[in-house]
């Protein structure tokens, strides 16, 4: 009941705020058309991410990185006559809120592209809304394969929505990549698999399990936790008594941190392995000393080590954002930049002006975008997935994530 009223109030506030911005942008539109050619066009890049709640550390990193991309484009006058603005909406990590946000972004005519969301489950709820409006959506963080390759992706790949792209690598690669590392490199043969039943977590756990079994490993137990809970002691006791030598967790850091701590507290001194959802400084904070030795796979090469990323890291610092860019900062920047590149292409093709059907043209242009971004080469395959299939294994060492192994998954 309280959750509902929370949503209602947030929605009311957001709607109010949106009405105001919509008024504002309509004025700007009017100004733009009267002296078009002078180029006073404003293009809004929508952002949808959890800006409050458990996952806000990741969400705020996404928002800030997109903001940085917009500011950089404005400063460099990257697209002549176009000023980029961002409009960030909070989805609280909930699919229903995300869908409302999608509707709002579609309603704002100045929005030509959206970066987000963080959660695959939220992405699922937004795709259709954007696709109907021919509005391009680039997710920096969705990793569920079904989003780009259809629900039957294991048998037959069919792209469900033409307007959906992502810069993140899918779980179809990430789960097996983790399985190979755990089995071949870490030499752990008995795994206890836990997930949080969300689209992302369950998907990741499933692809991991499949590959781990194929390699010859043994699944000594499975468990599904409730992400609202924080007492995992019963699960931890089960893990300990299962005799597992490693735990794989499909889910996100707000639960993974306490879970890791409670498993070690229960007496099972075995590493917890997770995906990019636990690759956050907050995981280390939450797990405390118990987190040392835990592993995470994350998409792409380590952002801090790529030469192309150095500039991003420095600019982010200079811009003075309060929150860190976290796991998806580089991908968010690249997602926003992909939209900016697509807008540039559309504007250039139309003689320096935005065409009337700009949204549809941006979707088409996005398919052929290709540039060197923060995370490496950014371009999309026929499903809208990133062509960059680099993954990295990180391990918690001295209170930080340290790179263990970076590689490309080959199947």
């Amino acid at each position, binding site marked *: *009941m*309280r959750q509902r*009223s*929370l949503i209602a*109030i947030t929605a009311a506030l957001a709607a109010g705020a949106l009405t105001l911005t919509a008024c504002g942008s309509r004025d700007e539109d009017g100004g733009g058309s009267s002296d078009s050619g002078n180029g006073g066009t404003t293009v809004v890049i929508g952002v949808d991410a959890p800006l*409050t*709640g*458990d996952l*806000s*550390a990741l969400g*705020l990193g996404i928002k800030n990185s997109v903001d940085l991309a917009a500011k950089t484009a404005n400063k460099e006058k990257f697209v002549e006559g176009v000023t980029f603005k961002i409009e960030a909406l909070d989805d609280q990590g909930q699919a229903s809120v995300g869908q409302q946000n999608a509707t709002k972004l579609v309603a704002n005519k100045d929005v030509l592209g959206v970066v987000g969301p963080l959660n695959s489950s939220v992405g699922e709820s937004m795709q259709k809304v954007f696709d109907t409006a021919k509005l391009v959506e680039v997710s920096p963080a969705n990793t569920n394969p079904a989003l780009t390759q259809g629900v039957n992706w294991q048998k037959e790949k069919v792209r469900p929505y033409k307007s959906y792209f992502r810069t993140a690598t899918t779980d179809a690669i990430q789960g097996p990549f983790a399985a190979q590392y755990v089995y071949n490199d870490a030499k752990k043969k008995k795994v206890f698999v836990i997930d949080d*039943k969300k689209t992302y977590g369950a998907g990741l756990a499933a692809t991991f399990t499949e590959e781990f079994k194929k390699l010859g490993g043994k699944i000594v137990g*499975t*468990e*599904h*936790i*409730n992400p*609202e*809970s*924080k*007492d*995992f*002691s*019963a*699960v931890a*006791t*089960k893990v*300990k*008594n299962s005799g597992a030598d490693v735990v794989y967790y499909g889910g996100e850091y*707000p639960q993974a*941190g*306490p879970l890791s*701590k409670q498993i070690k*507290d*229960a*007496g099972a001194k075995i590493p917890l392995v997770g995906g990019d959802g636990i690759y956050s400084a*907050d995981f280390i*904070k*939450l797990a*405390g000393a118990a987190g040392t030795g835990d592993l995470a796979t994350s998409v792409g090469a380590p952002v801090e080590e790529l030469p192309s990323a150095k500039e991003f890291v420095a600019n982010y610092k200079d811009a003075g954002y309060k929150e860190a860019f976290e796991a998806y900062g580089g991908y968010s920047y690249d997602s926003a930049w992909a939209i900016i590149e697509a807008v540039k292409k559309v504007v250039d093709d139309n003689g320096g002006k935005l065409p009337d059907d700009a949204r549809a043209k941006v979707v088409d242009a996005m398919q052929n975008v290709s540039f060197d971004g923060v995370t490496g080469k950014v371009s999309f395959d026929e499903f809208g997935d990133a062509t960059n299939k680099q993954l990295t294994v990180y391990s918690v060492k001295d209170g930080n994530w340290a790179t263990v192994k970076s590689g490309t998954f080959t199947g």
Partner: protein
Amino acid sequence: MNELPQQLVNGLLLGSMYGLVAIGYTMVYGIVQLINFAHGEIFMVGAFGALTVHLYLLPDGTSIWVALPLMLLGAVIVSVLVAIGAERFAYRPLRGAPRLAPLITAIGLSLALQQAVWAFYPEAKSKLPFPQIEGGPFTIGGATLQTGDIFLLIAAPISMAFLAYFVMRTRTGRGMQATAQDPDTAKLMGVNTDRIIVIAFALGAVFAAVGGVASGLKYGQIDFKMGFILGLKAFTAAVLGGIGNIYGAMIGGVVLGVVETLATAYIADIPGLDKFGSQSWAEVWAFILLILVLLFRPQGLLGERVADRA
């Protein structure tokens, strides 16, 4: 290895936490028939009060043994102030109004408190680490206990004993019983019912504060949402034990905690039920138990006074 002792201990600990918070629900309900949905947030601000003392009032590196009593004190002060403020400004003006009005106020207050902490407490937008007691773990009879668990195991029974003494033996406590039985007559007999109501809120807040500190010590982290689910569970525990009955709150809490834990641990082993055994189903089993109890014993496990209220 037999995991039953460990799972029972896990359940007992979880249940003690529910119980500490449930007392606040049950006391306030017993006296003013208000389901104080903001009580979960009283628990949350208590934990934040303790953290504030540790982070901002004590010098870095203070031993936890020195810090803990002060943190507990800080937690109690913050919780009690918020609870008394809530009573004075949110509930008292609505006394005598239809019952839905204060209930909705409570829900609003709960949201307001959550969001206030989220907005104004430094870095409360993500989870905050809570100081830990060094040492442990201890193994007692096949069950492993952490230092944070020991605090809870000591604090919960002491709090209960104190409450029982207070309600049964002191003058104010008897005033509370009288007000619970019949507020109008109690007033005629010279009981200052306004004061009694404030004391009920304050006492509930003290237990919530102890629960908040225990939660921080046990899980090593606190966040602005920590009171929401726990508040619902504690309310469930209060209903299970018989709302209005302070012993019922504790019993209800322990039963709820143990059922959730055992459901996680063992349901999956029953042939045919393996799909329903994971932790994500534990609450379903706990609520099935609640429904059964309410079907066969509507007043709750220990309740006796609800019938004449309804």
